[in-house]
């Protein structure tokens, strides 16, 4: 079966996912979960449940000792997951099992040092074998992409690029030649739920839309259905991370964590579709 699934160009799965929603006149939902929080078996069930409830792409966060782009919620999830001794082999095995039952794109969110220490060539080869589609590396800006870009390309893994409200004249440069989707950071600061956004989204997306030739997704701080409704018109998709991790973390047991992920994904999906 592995050979079959590798016939898809990996960024092809990402493009197809956005294309499918576009044809429906809808927006894509991207959800995030930290691998190994509360435990690996629960993560696997949560990912499958999110997909079943209408997530179009799932980001798997690789727990890291020093996640400098993360706010307190995902930092705490990272610490819990690391206590379980999560290693890349576990994550690849998890992706492999999920890929066996779904065609939904899966991407990793991780820090560049994890890829570099693993060995970029071996890393992206294992990504391909496990049916992963892309990576988001928050501490690897455009200028430093040469660190891993060739290896990612060789194995057909999309290196997702990010733009932020203070990217200004960098947006054109970053958007040009971007793969998968363009990750549009909603506001300054680290990940984490926000009560409101100060960003002028009209101006931000005017610059983005003039420069991009792939789908866009808006993330950082989007925390519930109401916020999804308020921002969904700007991009082709929305990304919900910390709010998902928080609701999972409030569960008393893995069973409840899965149930919470289902309920929250449902809320987000209906906010996108109504």
């Amino acid at each position, binding site marked *: 079966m592995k050979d079959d699934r590798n016939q898809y160009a990996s960024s092809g799965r990402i493009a197809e996912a956005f294309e499918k929603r576009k044809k429906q006149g809808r927006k894509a939902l991207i959800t995030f979960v930290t691998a190994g929080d509360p435990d690996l078996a629960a993560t696997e069930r949560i990912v499958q449940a999110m997909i079943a409830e209408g997530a179009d792409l799932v980001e798997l966060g690789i727990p*890291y*000792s*020093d996640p*400098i*782009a993360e*706010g*307190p919620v995902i*930092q705490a999830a990272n*610490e819990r997951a*690391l206590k379980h001794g999560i*290693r*890349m082999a576990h994550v690849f095995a998890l992706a492999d099992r999920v890929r066996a039952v779904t065609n939904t794109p899966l991407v990793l969110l991780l*820090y*560049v*040092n*994890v*890829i*570099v*220490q*693993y060995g970029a060539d071996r890393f992206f080869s294992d990504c391909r074998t496990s049916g992963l589609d892309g990576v988001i590396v*928050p*501490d*690897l*800006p*455009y*200028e*430093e992409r040469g*660190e891993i870009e060739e290896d990612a390309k060789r194995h057909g893994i999309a290196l997702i690029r*990010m*733009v*932020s*409200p*203070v*990217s*200004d004249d*960098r947006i054109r440069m*970053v958007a040009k030649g971007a793969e998968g989707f363009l990750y549009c*950071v909603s506001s*300054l*600061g*680290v990940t984490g739920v926000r009560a409101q956004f100060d960003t002028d989204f009209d101006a931000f997306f005017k610059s983005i839309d003039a420069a991009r030739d792939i789908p866009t997704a808006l993330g950082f701080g989007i925390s519930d259905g109401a916020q999804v409704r308020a921002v969904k018109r700007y991009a082709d998709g929305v990304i919900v991370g910390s709010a998902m991790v928080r609701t999972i973390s409030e569960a008393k047991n893995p069973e409840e964590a899965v149930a919470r992920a289902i309920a929250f994904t449902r809320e987000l999906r209906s906010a996108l579709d109504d």
Partner: protein
Amino acid sequence: MDGKRFGRHGGQYVPETLMNALGELEQAYDEARMDPAFQAELTALSKDYAGRPSLLYFAANMTKDLGGARIYLKREDLNHTGSHKINNVLGQVLLAKRMGKKRVIAETGAGQHGVATATAAALFGMECSVYMGAEDVERQALNVFRMRLLGSEVHSVTSGTATLKDAVNEAMREWTKRVQDTFYVLGSVMGPAPYPRMVRDFQRIIGEEIKTQLMELEGKLPDAVLACVGGGSNAMGAFHAFIPDKSVRLIGVEAAGDGVDTDRHAATITKGTVGIFHGMKSYFLQDDEGQITPVYSISAGLDYPGIGPEHAWLHDEGRAEYVSATDKEAVDAFCYLSRMEGIIPAIESAHAVAHARKIAPEMPEDSVLVVNLSGRGDKDVYQIARYMGVDVHEG
């Protein structure tokens, strides 16, 4: 080199949100660097406010006791605020003022950089927030109070290992949050470009003064320059002017904690591997999947799992040597210098003194060894007393 790299090390590995800010900083710094008015203001402040030049003191008792090289101490401990950190802070805060920023933030380990930043912020009427690991807040309580006295907020960082590395994480997160109105005063020759180069330039005066002063006192270059290394700013400041002088041995002393063969040390070059962290490529203490490993040293200022990229490059090139001293050797040296010369060194600087005690006796009597005494030890007295108290119990 484009000013962002030192050989394979350095770079700018930070979130997209910080990239334009780093670009603006780089441009503002390069303009200031070439501006005689900026340099004149910095020179005047360094002299009139910080007390430069710092003394180069011939340690006669130590020289006689060790019986080898003639030992000189570069007295950065005599600077205003008690360490070399003020050199860099005055430069960066002047730059912040020039860029129109009204708020500065800083990380601190031992508290010396935090105190220096709080001091400069007070002088220039700027708002100041300092991030400090909760463990360091505990072991450097006096410096925490000093910072608050100077009008700064001190944020105790409880994430991760609650030491210097985590303080840097939190300062970087805060900078991402308020990048438009905030200037990040980074305390060492580390982090993303242009910080390693800029901090080195502001600290370079240490080595320049050593060169001039020693020429007057001995009529020659030193045979070796010794300095402790955490992130590496006092060492880079002492070394940089001597890099072209190949006859001068440059020796950085890392913190060996309980010993480099235990898992409780902070000897980055001795035991680390190349990786990417805190915005730079350099040597780090990490596991095979890139997780940064917890480090340990009695000295909060050396308790860091990485080292500045220019040091990593000097190591690769073989131009500087990196050795280590244990907690015990540092505490012994702390007591030794106090009794021998009547100078209580910072526990960080005591690591360099410890290595001087090892190599001075083996050097010829007409040779000259300069030890950079990066800070004074008042802040450490309580902790050393506790350390020695434990020794007594164990005995």
